[in-house]
């Protein structure tokens, strides 16, 4: 084989890899006991794209994220990462693959038993990537990138504010330079200024390293500011028969003009008839049997 033919093969391979979507969900269904959370979800996320998933509480957004990172196994369907089905991988292969993910949890999920520095260092130590002075330099750099001073590294998570914890969670998720960043409600519980700081950090992360991002949020400001594409999920239990659970998939600009009333309602934060629906289903479910009545008087 000549040098030129090798180069052509490598170029073809690189082009093939670039054209393969980073994440692909194929007919993914997730059920717990008899309850369907996600039904027949098909979603493709190309490399470098920032996708924001919106939808009301309980529609399965977090479960979607956890299925992608392999924390939850779908009942049926496939989750592909760079063309590989992650739920068919062995423990060692999966561990290696997870180095390519960065996950920012809703409440940061920092390890209480460790200091902030140890939390940020954890992925590097776990995968034997850095130690000693190099490790401490990386920690200081990562903390500085999210706007935290070096003296924070000796503190415990409980000593920090919610916004600081979120930023530490972001620094920890970014420490391995992941290919895919997953954010679970990154701005929930933060004041508007801190929410925007997190938004800026997410945008910088994407601009700097071209990271693919999947963000779950209820915050429409975040969705409009950081998203290339918005996907709206609707609770399976309230769908009409045969309807897709993804009721919107498009640019953030199209949200306002979307014909679907449910999308408009969510984007504008209007309850509409939702309260009446909730009250109706609650009253319909009344159980006045003596066994239930006794439960409260005991």
């Amino acid at each position, binding site marked *: 084989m000549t040098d030129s033919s090798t180069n052509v093969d490598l170029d073809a391979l690189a082009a093939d890899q670039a054209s393969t979507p980073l994440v692909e969900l194929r007919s993914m269904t997730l059920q717990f006991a008899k309850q369907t959370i996600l039904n027949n979800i098909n979603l493709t996320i190309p490399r470098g794209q920032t996708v924001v998933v919106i939808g009301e509480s309980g529609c399965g957004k977090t479960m979607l994220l956890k299925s992608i990172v392999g924390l939850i196994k779908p009942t049926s369907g496939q989750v592909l990462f760079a063309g590989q089905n992650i739920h068919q991988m062995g423990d060692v292969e999966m561990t290696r693959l*997870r180095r390519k993910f960065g996950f920012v949890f809703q409440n940061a999920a*920092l390890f209480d038993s460790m200091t902030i520095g140890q939390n940020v260092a954890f992925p590097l130590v776990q995968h034997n990537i850095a130690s000693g002075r190099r490790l401490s330099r990386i920690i200081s750099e990562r903390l500085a990138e999210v706007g935290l001073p070096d003296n924070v590294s000796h503190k415990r998570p409980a000593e920090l504010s919610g916004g600081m914890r979120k930023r530490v969670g972001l620094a920890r998720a970014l420490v391995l330079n992941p290919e895919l960043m997953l954010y679970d409600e990154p701005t929930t519980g933060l004041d508007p200024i801190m929410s925007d700081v997190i938004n800026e950090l997410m945008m910088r992360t994407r601009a700097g390293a071209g990271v693919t991002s999947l963000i779950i949020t209820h915050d429409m400001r975040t969705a409009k500011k950081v998203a290339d594409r918005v996907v709206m999920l609707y609770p399976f239990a309230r769908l009409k028969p045969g309807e897709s659970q993804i009721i919107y998939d498009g640019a953030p600009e199209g949200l306002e003009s979307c014909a679907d009333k449910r999308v408009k309602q969510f984007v504008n934060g209007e309850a509409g008839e939702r309260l009446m629906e909730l009250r109706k289903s609650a009253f319909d479910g009344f159980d006045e049997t003596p066994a239930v009545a006794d439960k409260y008087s005991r």
Partner: protein
Amino acid sequence: MSSVTQAETQSSVLPEPVYRWISDWGEMVVDALMTLGDMAIFSWRMFVWMFKAWPRKGTILPNFYHVGVLSLPVVALTGTFIGMVLAVQSFVQFQNIGLESRLGAVINMSLVRELGPVLAATMLAGRVGSAMAAVLGTMRVTEQIDALTSMGANPIHYLVVPRFLACILLIPALTIMADFMGIVGGYFYSVVMLQIDHYQYLNNSRQFVGGWDFFMGIFKSFFFGGTIAIVSCYRGFHCQAGAEGVGRAATAAFVFSFVLILGIDLILNIFLDAVYAAIWPQGAKLF
């Protein structure tokens, strides 16, 4: 529709309370079997990870310190009291039949074969087991275990294996401490307080308590330690959400461990007595 018809048929054959009673018990049995199976898979995965990769020093040493060093004072203290309580309880009965000089044999035999290992295991289950379940439970409900997994660390390898190793490797040391302090406590109360002859006390102990009795206690303790670690970690990993869930996991870890310790103790005693009888049919001692 079919399930309603089935339920109606069932309740027409059996009175409602009986039907409900049978269904509740059936559900409990199925749940218990599922928990047992789940726990067996959990243990298997723990053993696989233990042999696949040795945990880091940084994860093992804090667990060794917590399980071994911090448990030592309380095990020593309770061991001393148990030795003294045995002396108080046995003295009157043995004095009535004129065998108070044999008190040393009874106290020390009971301690090294039974009370030392069971007491050390009980203290470990109460002090360490419930704490393990509470810590792991809190980590579960605050998504720290998910965070570990998402960063490429296997939670069983990172959290369970070091705890298991600390429990099985350090419980023999705690048992020896409980034995030793119990022997000291029993000797002190019998010889100093009850005025039993020093020579008779020690000579009878030497005559009746042998190496096999010590071996039995230490051998059993490995199983107790392993049981405490597996049950407590399993309970922590399968903790329900909220403060109540964590509390329940901690309580269940102790209760399950304690019941299993006593059950395993019975089985091991029967097994070890059979081994002893097979090796020394004439009743010879190991040392």
